[in-house]
């Protein structure tokens, strides 16, 4: 605790120096950009007057407008849980026996909404507080993949296809539990390196607002990348090219699974991107939605930061393989 306080003082002291030495701060850069944007508006309009550019922007903005409310809902709920639910609640709720704790942790992911960006630090906190790592990892994977916000957004993104929602839920839950059991059997604690936990000193509400802001900005930034890729695939890539990949059952699934890893979209909004990839098979879309919340570039970086690089190097490929298998099996059986 005293260490926390010391670190705090340290950052407060350093901050003004850092600010003045930087030259242009981000708020000034932003102000300049805004002034530029407003004065250059006729030029911008001319730049985007091209019909192709208009179509690209329309599809890009469409994904953002549709997905942002779900992202806001997810970050508000997960920040509320992180700020207001006592940390020892989870270690009391999870059974002691690992074999049993894993499925319980997986199912509790269905009840507790958490953005994947939030669930990684939550899992770190769980391990630190004595929950079996296998159960914590299952929770970390299941919670962003099958929580109520994700289920609703998938339902909205695929109107009239409840089987897609069911397939996503089942495939994600099974894969999360499989990973938990796999860790219980093969995992070694020496792969884990957990940094010390830091507290919020300003109370629960400050933690809540700061959590919403941080999670939304972080996830929103990645959503922008995902929306841009979806808009590009739908406007710039000719339909006939995409059809070659999309019509091949194996290539289509692999392509979307890899895309999910690359674009790092938040689970609350990835269903909308998946739904907009109209050329691909339902199984390929399912693979996109099952793999995405489990493993992507952003999450791999967060795993390495929270649990250590040795862990991430083993965990990430294993999770990718298990998630892809679960999606393919579920796609073949149900879709």
């Amino acid at each position, binding site marked *: 605790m005293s260490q926390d306080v010391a670190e705090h003082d340290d950052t407060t002291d350093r*901050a003004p120096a850092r600010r003045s030495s930087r030259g242009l701060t981000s708020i000034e850069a932003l102000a300049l950009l805004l002034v530029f944007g407003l004065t250059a508006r006729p030029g911008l309009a001319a730049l985007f007057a091209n019909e*192709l550019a208009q179509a690209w922007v*329309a599809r890009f903005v469409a994904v953002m407008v549709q997905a942002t409310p779900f992202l806001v*809902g997810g970050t508000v709920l997960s920040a509320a849980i992180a700020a207001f639910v006592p940390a020892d609640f989870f270690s009391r709720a999870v059974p002691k026996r690992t074999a049993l704790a894993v499925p319980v942790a997986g199912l509790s992911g269905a009840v507790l909404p958490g953005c994947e960006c939030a669930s990684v630090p939550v899992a770190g906190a769980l391990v630190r507080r004595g929950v079996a790592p296998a159960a914590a990892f299952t929770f970390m994977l299941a919670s962003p993949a099958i929580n109520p916000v994700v289920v609703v957004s998938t339902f909205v993104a695929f109107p009239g296809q409840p089987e897609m929602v069911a397939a996503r839920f089942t495939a994600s839950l099974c894969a999360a539990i499989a990973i938990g059991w796999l860790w219980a059997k093969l995992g070694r604690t020496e792969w884990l390196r957990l940094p010390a936990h*830091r507290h*919020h000193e300003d109370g629960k509400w400050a933690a809540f607002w700061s959590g919403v802001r941080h999670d939304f900005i972080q996830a929103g930034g990645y959503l922008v990348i995902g929306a841009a890729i979806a808009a590009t695939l739908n406007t710039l890539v000719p339909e006939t090219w995409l059809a070659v990949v999309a019509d091949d059952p194996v290539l289509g699934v692999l392509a979307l699974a890899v895309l999910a890893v690359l674009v790092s979209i938040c689970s609350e909004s990835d269903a909308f991107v998946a739904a907009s990839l109209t050329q691909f098979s339902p199984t390929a879309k399912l693979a996109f939605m099952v793999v995405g919340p489990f493993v992507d570039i952003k999450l791999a970086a967060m795993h390495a930061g929270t649990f250590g690089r040795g862990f991430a190097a083993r965990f990430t490929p294993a999770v990718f393989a298990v998630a892809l298998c679960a999606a393919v099996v579920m796609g073949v059986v149900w879709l």
Partner: protein
Amino acid sequence: MRRDAQAVVLLLLGGGLIRLVVTGDYLNYVKPYAFWLVLPAGIILVAVAAVTSWESWKGRGEAHGECHPDGHDRPKVAWLLLAPVVGMLLVAPDALGSFEAQRTGTAVGAEENRSTYPELPDDVDPVPLTLLDYAARAVFDEGRTLEGHRIQLRGFILYNGDEPQLARMIVACCAADARPVKIGFDGGAPADLEPDQWVEVVGVYSPEQGRDEINGELVPYIEVESVTNISSPDNEYQ
């Protein structure tokens, strides 16, 4: 990105969403029900922006910056959130129209597994139908339920080479997945139709069918009685 700058970005994004809803432009991108999602999201984002700027103004901003071990409380990806702001507020594109419809294959295949084609009412003349409904009845039910009725269709004009066609964008979730349904004119289409002009077509079922060159799906035709120019509807998607 610093905290106060983050507040400005959140304010712009939330304000942009609220503006879309207030002006009704959100219908260019999402379905009408999204009103109830976009408006609260915009308000929450503005509230987060307000709290953030208040805390930052009080000088507590830097004090609890290092919440996460790798210090990504000043995320660089935050700059990317300016892209949708520029898209929504400065570029503000219209609903997708003939340009995209010409480059995209017709979406009639989505209706292939439809089970029932209810009889059309006898006491309505002409019977208004959506383009997708007409196309599905014409292609997959061989027009059985269409015969003996005058049909009224509303859509915009696109050109397939020199040939004018009637089209409407179908949206499953949001405009990113918009795909057109296309219907050909069998005789009597005025020659001076502009692309993107919205029209109301009254006519009867024609057994003629063409193929969309882009995806090889069937394009049904309608035998035209009259074509009237109309103004574009608030919600151009279906």
